């Protein structure tokens, strides 16, 4: 009887270990974001981290996704927590048909005119001192503007990223949450692009 119980206990332990979540593997799917090139997000239901760098003050980054139905998605913009980037506050806007007409102040912030028939949601920094987060995949500290759940309509949506003050430096545009075991892609072979 006792041997039987021990077998069950060992079975439970092994099953537990197999089913236990491996938090080290939880991550956004990383990708390099190049200025001046349209980055297409094939599956808007997955979580992404787009790593870019403003080398020039007027660099402009653009990504496109085409959700099949309206979609609620958390988005945030992060900046490496380094002294030289303390004033680096890039912004993003979601641009597309069905989004609200931006206020005059928001429109003045946009880096280019809105396409015909498009509205926009312009991100904000919730706190002047910015929230600090620890990103567990690259194990680095970042400032964030604050993750915000946005509702985007179905159809073609563009994400614009620019630097309103003309500051340069790295940033990450994060979509979704660290929510599942995702292929880290070529993160390790391009570590210098992702980490800092």
């Amino acid at each position: 009887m006792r041997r039987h119980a021990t077998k069950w206990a060992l079975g439970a332990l092994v099953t537990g270990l197999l089913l236990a979540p491996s938090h080290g593997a939880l991550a956004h799917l990383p990708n390099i974001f190049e200025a001046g090139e349209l980055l297409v997000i094939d599956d808007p239901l997955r979580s992404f981290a787009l790593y870019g760098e403003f080398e020039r003050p007027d660099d402009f980054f653009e990504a496109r996704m085409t959700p099949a139905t309206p979609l609620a998605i958390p988005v945030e913009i992060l900046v490496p927590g380094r002294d030289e980037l303390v004033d680096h506050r890039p912004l993003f806007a979601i641009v597309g048909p069905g989004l609200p007409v931006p206020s005059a102040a928001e429109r003045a912030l946009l880096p280019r005119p809105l396409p015909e028939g498009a509205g926009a949601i312009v991100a904000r920094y919730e706190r002047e001192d910015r929230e600090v987060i620890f990103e567990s995949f690259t194990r680095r500290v970042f400032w964030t503007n604050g993750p915000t759940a946005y509702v985007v309509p179905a159809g073609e949506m563009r994400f614009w990223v620019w630097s309103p003050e003309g500051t340069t430096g790295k940033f990450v545009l994060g979509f979704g949450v660290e929510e599942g075991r995702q292929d880290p892609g070529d993160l390790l072979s391009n570590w210098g692009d992702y980490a800092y």
Partner: protein
Amino acid sequence: MGLPLSRHPTWPLAATFWALLCASCGAEQGPECKAFVSCVGELDVLHGTHTNVDRFLPEGACWGSDKGAEVCESACRRGIPRLREQEPQLSCQQGGVP
């Protein structure tokens, strides 16, 4: 007939181990996201749409880890006022402390 736990010390050990594992198995849907999902539901009624909020639902991906849950709750808290800006007819409220 069940096994008396005291006569089988492996059982409490296994139970403890299992409990420790499940403590890191995930989180529950938080009040901010519950309110956010409800708010999006209100938006859908107004617009005749069906928004994908799967990630934020009780069984959604948001609640797979404590860190993910924290990010989602934070995102939902900020999301509700943005949603009201998008659609001023919405009457939904924040889920937690205003």
